[in-house]
């Protein structure tokens, strides 16, 4: 094993960390969440959540990666030999997210090409579900693989493979240094165009006009904490893996805070863009904003193409929008896959090129499941469960165990010794009390809702196979890996003592 690779420059690391945090959620989740939770008033709980949860957690994870110089599994095992399972849980989540996120990135790449000819036509709903996805009647009807989707999924995995195969500096850092400025400039160009459209102000009025009543509702606060939690790529190993490649003397607190602020700034710009477009579309059609506003896949691949059709220079705007979506998604997917690859490299002392090649091949095979006709239904269920149960539970476990039972004081000292500004009592208070309370409330709320209602009206069998089963496998997998590791360690000790 050679010396551990490092980031070439601080800017390279910031671009990579920001690229990982800025993902599809910034573009298709934050705008609708703001609109649906009190408009401008939602920004208050959102910024409180950023300061009391987002920044403290990202500082903590950056410090863990930097101090223990390893990917999550080995980093946690270095903290305590009984904590390795927390790392495995995060790696499992990263693997599951990676295999379905790749297919969405592949859709964005495909749509970039489709946008050059406005190939989605006038009925964008029918195009997306019938002609693009060839969607089946439900998640239990898998159907065959759709060749077009499979080809783009394979291309996406090839691009991931090339990037990670090239290493940290020549791969991830290089790509981030090119893609992040492209994303930012592309976003600004589209933004300037769309805010000057007739009706953009109408959309922005709905987005930013505050409804202060919502601040007094607890659900607004959980929505704000949830958005901060999901959008910063925290609690599933990315920040730990990336910061493990930082130089010894690198700053931690400032780098983490900078990443969090840039990510949220990008979310705000995306919200302005999306609601300008939706306001324009609503004005053109003479309908209310609620008739066109939405979130998730439907917003990106149905509502936006429909709005683009009505715009001047639709091909240019459409191509730029989907290129931005692809770039945002690609810089995130490489970080997700890197979590798994760096774990294999660190834990099993495998050569990067071999580890990346094996993992990308396996990941690509799993991704092909989501390119089947029933793939979008499976993706919806898996995404719902891995976010609401996987990430939330892994987050609670990580924060509670690290701040209460592991070496929080040592981590704090590590941060303060090398950072531009120090962390103190407030940071400890947020990690020990505030964040576990909010995450715990979210987790219980999710669990109650799941047990009392059927998610997406899917068949119970499908919910079990693609939802609960994955959560159960995650728990079994992480504890099994911990058990195997402890057993190996004991065997080694016995051998030495003999």
């Amino acid at each position, binding site marked *: 094993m050679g010396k551990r690779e490092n980031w070439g420059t*601080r800017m390279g690391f910031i671009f990579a960390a920001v690229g990982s945090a800025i993902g599809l959620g910034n573009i298709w989740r934050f705008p609708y969440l703001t609109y649906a939770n009190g408009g*401008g008033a939602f*920004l208050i709980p959102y910024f409180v959540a950023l300061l009391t949860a987002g920044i403290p957690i990202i500082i903590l994870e950056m410090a863990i990666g930097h101090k223990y110089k390893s990917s999550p599994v080995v980093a946690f095992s270095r903290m305590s030999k009984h904590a390795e399972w927390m790392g495995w849980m995060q790696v499992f989540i990263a693997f599951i997210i990676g295999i379905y996120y790749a297919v969405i990135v592949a859709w964005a790449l495909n749509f970039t090409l489709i946008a050059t000819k406005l190939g989605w036509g006038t009925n964008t709903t029918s195009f997306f579900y019938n002609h693009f996805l060839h969607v089946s009647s439900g998640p239990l009807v898998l159907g065959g693989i759709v060749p077009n989707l499979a080809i783009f999924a394979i291309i996406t995995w090839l691009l991931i493979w090339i990037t990670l195969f090239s290493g940290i500096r020549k791969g991830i850092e290089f790509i981030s240094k090119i893609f992040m400025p492209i994303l930012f400039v592309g976003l600004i160009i589209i933004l300037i165009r769309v805010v000057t459209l007739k009706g953009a102000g109408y959309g922005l009025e709905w987005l930013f*006009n505050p409804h202060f009543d919502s601040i007094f509702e607890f659900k607004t606060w959980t929505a704000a904490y949830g958005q901060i939690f999901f959008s910063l790529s925290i609690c599933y190993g990315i920040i730990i893996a990336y910061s493990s490649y930082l130089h010894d003397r690198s700053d931690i607190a400032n780098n983490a805070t900078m990443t969090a602020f*840039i990510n949220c*700034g990008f979310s*705000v710009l995306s919200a*302005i863009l999306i609601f300008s477009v939706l306001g324009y579309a609503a004005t053109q059609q003479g309908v209310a904003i609620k008739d066109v506003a939405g979130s998730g896949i439907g917003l990106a691949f149905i509502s936006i193409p429909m709005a683009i059709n009505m715009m001047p220079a639709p091909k240019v705007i459409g191509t730029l929008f989907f290129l931005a979506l692809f770039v945002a998604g690609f810089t995130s997917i490489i970080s997700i896959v890197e979590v798994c690859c760096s774990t294999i490299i660190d834990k099993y002392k495998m050569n990067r090129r071999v580890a990346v090649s094996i993992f990308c091949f396996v990941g690509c095979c799993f991704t092909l499941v989501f390119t089947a006709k029933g793939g979008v239904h499976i993706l919806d269920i898996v995404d719902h469960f891995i976010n609401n149960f996987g990430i939330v539970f892994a987050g609670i476990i990580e924060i509670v165990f690290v701040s209460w039972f592991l070496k929080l004081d040592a981590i704090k000292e590590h941060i303060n010794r090398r950072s531009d500004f120090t962390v103190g009592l407030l940071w400890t208070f947020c990690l020990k009390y505030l964040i576990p309370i909010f995450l715990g409330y979210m987790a219980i709320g999710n669990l109650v809702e799941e047990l009392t209602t059927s998610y997406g009206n899917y068949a119970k069998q499908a919910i079990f196979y693609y939802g609960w089963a994955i959560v159960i496998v995650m728990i079994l997998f992480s504890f099994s890996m911990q058990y195997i590791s402890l057993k190996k360690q004991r065997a080694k000790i016995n051998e030495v003592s003999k």
Partner: protein
Amino acid sequence: MSLTAIIFMIFALVVTWGGATLCITIAIKKKSK
């Protein structure tokens, strides 16, 4: 677009990008790595 909505939009931009700019300024001033 109402004045209140404009104020909140500016508030969002100032907090996020202002925060990022402040962090970058500190990093440059302190010449940290």
